[in-house]
């Protein structure tokens, strides 16, 4: 437990709480139970996809494809349900499988083709949206299946179902990263791939696996998106990949790879969503939302980067020398 809830969580957790406090001060509607249960709906899709994006980042990769992949998968799901007539219980696992499969392709090309993941997933970002447009002449497909909506809007003991998905997948991810061979191999590959090769870690396999995980989690997100909107559309998920990466980054994941706590990503996603919710509740225009989100990303990373300087400054202000050394690692450029 100590391993999972480590000191890396303090920063993102504090950020989340501070942001929540500020929002709660600006509007009493924030702490309304209805609104709080809304938050778990709002955060669910991006936070679930961010699990995959973060794990790819841990292995020093980047996944730009998830937004387009969501579009493609919602179209495939729509096609399956509406035009091919496959029952929902079969279609959902199929979508998860396709998500993993697309991730596998990306992973194989990246790892075995030695192409930087920025490039492969940029290509996928463009191509997947094109593929999504080939279905149904590029038109959205509506009213897929009445049984789809409860997947997103349903409740258990009065708590929205997406809350449970979040708990389940984040618990699984935290366990994997901290207590399994795979998890440690992902960190090792991200930290120093050359060293990982020399120690016998199958670096390419590990890299590929991270993309399979990302594809799978994107499929989970795509299913929730389809359930929420009861439709599939080639336009869904635009910039979702950036939101997912933003969640990881606000949570403190280093793009250089090798370190970070997966639970911090959940907090990063929560922070972003709380801010958006707060702005929505105060009826702020979308322009302000964008500006604020940009600043949050900068601030979150800045605070992480300048931790040593900030703590030194704090020490000077509060008159005690900061004895704790910065845990940030000097990366060879």
């Amino acid at each position: 437990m100590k391993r999972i809830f480590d000191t890396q969580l303090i920063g993102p957790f504090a950020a989340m709480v501070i942001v929540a406090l500020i929002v709660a001060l600006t509007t009493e509607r924030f702490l309304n139970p209805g609104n709080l249960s809304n938050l778990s709906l709002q955060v669910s899709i991006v936070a679930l996809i961010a699990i995959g994006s973060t794990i790819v980042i841990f292995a020093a990769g980047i996944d730009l494809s998830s937004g387009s992949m969501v579009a493609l998968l919602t179209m495939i799901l729509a096609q399956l349900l509406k035009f091919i007539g496959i029952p929902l219980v079969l279609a959902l696992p199929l979508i998860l499988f396709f998500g993993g499969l697309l991730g596998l392709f990306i992973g194989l090309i990246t790892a075995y083709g030695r192409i930087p993941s920025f490039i492969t997933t940029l290509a996928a970002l463009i191509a997947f949206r094109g593929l999504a447009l080939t279905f149904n002449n590029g038109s959205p497909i509506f009213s897929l299946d009445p049984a789809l909506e409860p997947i997103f809007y349903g409740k258990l003991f009065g708590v929205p179902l997406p809350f449970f998905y979040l708990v389940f997948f984040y618990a699984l991810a935290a366990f994997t990263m901290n207590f399994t061979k795979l998890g440690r191999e992902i960190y090792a590959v991200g930290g120093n791939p050359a060293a990982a090769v020399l120690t016998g870690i199958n670096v390419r396999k590990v890299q590929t696996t991270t993309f399979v995980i990302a594809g799978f989690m994107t499929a989970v997100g795509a299913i929730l998106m389809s359930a929420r909107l009861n439709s599939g559309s080639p336009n869904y998920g635009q910039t979702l990949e950036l939101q997912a990466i933003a969640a990881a980054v606000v949570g403190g994941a280093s793009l250089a790879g090798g370190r970070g706590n997966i639970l911090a990503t959940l907090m990063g996603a929560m922070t972003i969503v709380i801010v958006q919710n707060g702005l929505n509740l105060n009826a702020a225009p979308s322009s302000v939302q964008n500006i604020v989100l940009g600043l949050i990303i900068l601030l979150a990373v800045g605070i992480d980067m300048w931790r040593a300087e900030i703590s030194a400054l704090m020490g000077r202000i509060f008159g005690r020398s900061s004895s704790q050394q910065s845990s940030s690692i000097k990366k060879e450029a």
Partner: protein
Amino acid sequence: ENYPTPVPLQDGAQAAIDAIEPKNDTFRIAYMPPATEFNYYIAIGEGIKAVAAEAGVEVFMLAPQSGADINGQMGMIQDVLTQDVDAIIFGTHDEFAAAPLLKQAVDKGMAVLMINSDIPNFPTPIHGVVGYSQRNGTQAIADWAIETYGDQPLKVGIIEGQPGYHSTERVGGFLDGIEGNDNFEVVVSIDGKWNVEGGNTAGMDILQSNPDLDMIFAANDYMIIGASFAAKALGRNDIVLLGNDGDTSGLEEIAAGNITATVNTSPFLMGKAAMHATIDALNGSYPGGWIETPTSIEDKDGAISVLQEPEKLFPQPSKEY
């Protein structure tokens, strides 16, 4: 009267007006268009605000930036549901996605009206629909084109919007209008993504692949404005350019002679009508149903006369006409 007499919605699509329960003494109304990227919805919003100011009610606009961001719009509707709002005036690119949330709004006693639509059978019962008939508008401009240019064979290019209800209806209306007329031949039809940049690229491409084009119809004014630049660049000053909306800039381009004609749908007036209906609904004096706002075809002279009444326009024309 403030708006045309409502036409009843289809069976089962009408929510009960007497179930509306305003919570605030000063009505709080949310205007939720599909996106802020379209001037058109801003113009509607200005109409709404104008009436709100007169009537002394509170109104706020909440919308994602991109029309494609339906997920974002649903999030916003959800956020609004937990607030003490008395009415929602919404427009959406995905009525099926919005339906479950709007059902909750109706159940909570909010007045729910859809704007810029002619859907008589929204998937869940709502209180009213305000808008022009998308099909009739573009069919009228097709009729106008036949009347004006129909005496010789014409090759026509179409710039669609991104696939969806609006694109289907508007393009469908135009095609309905020219159907059966042997002089009109549609040779190409591509997506212009609803915006100027997309319209420009599409215009460039279709004029290049079909240098003998005589007429372009675009499903909105932005795209035809974009296409007009393409025509100009290729030295095609003789081409007939038709749009849809009655956007102020579209009208100004028509007045300047860069575009031939458009369907003027007066979004500002549509917004006013919608707001009047909403306040009436909250006061129980609106029977429910579809309010069809009028449209007209405006060519150069028509556009100038519309531009001479700036109080009915948003944004304001760039100069006095």
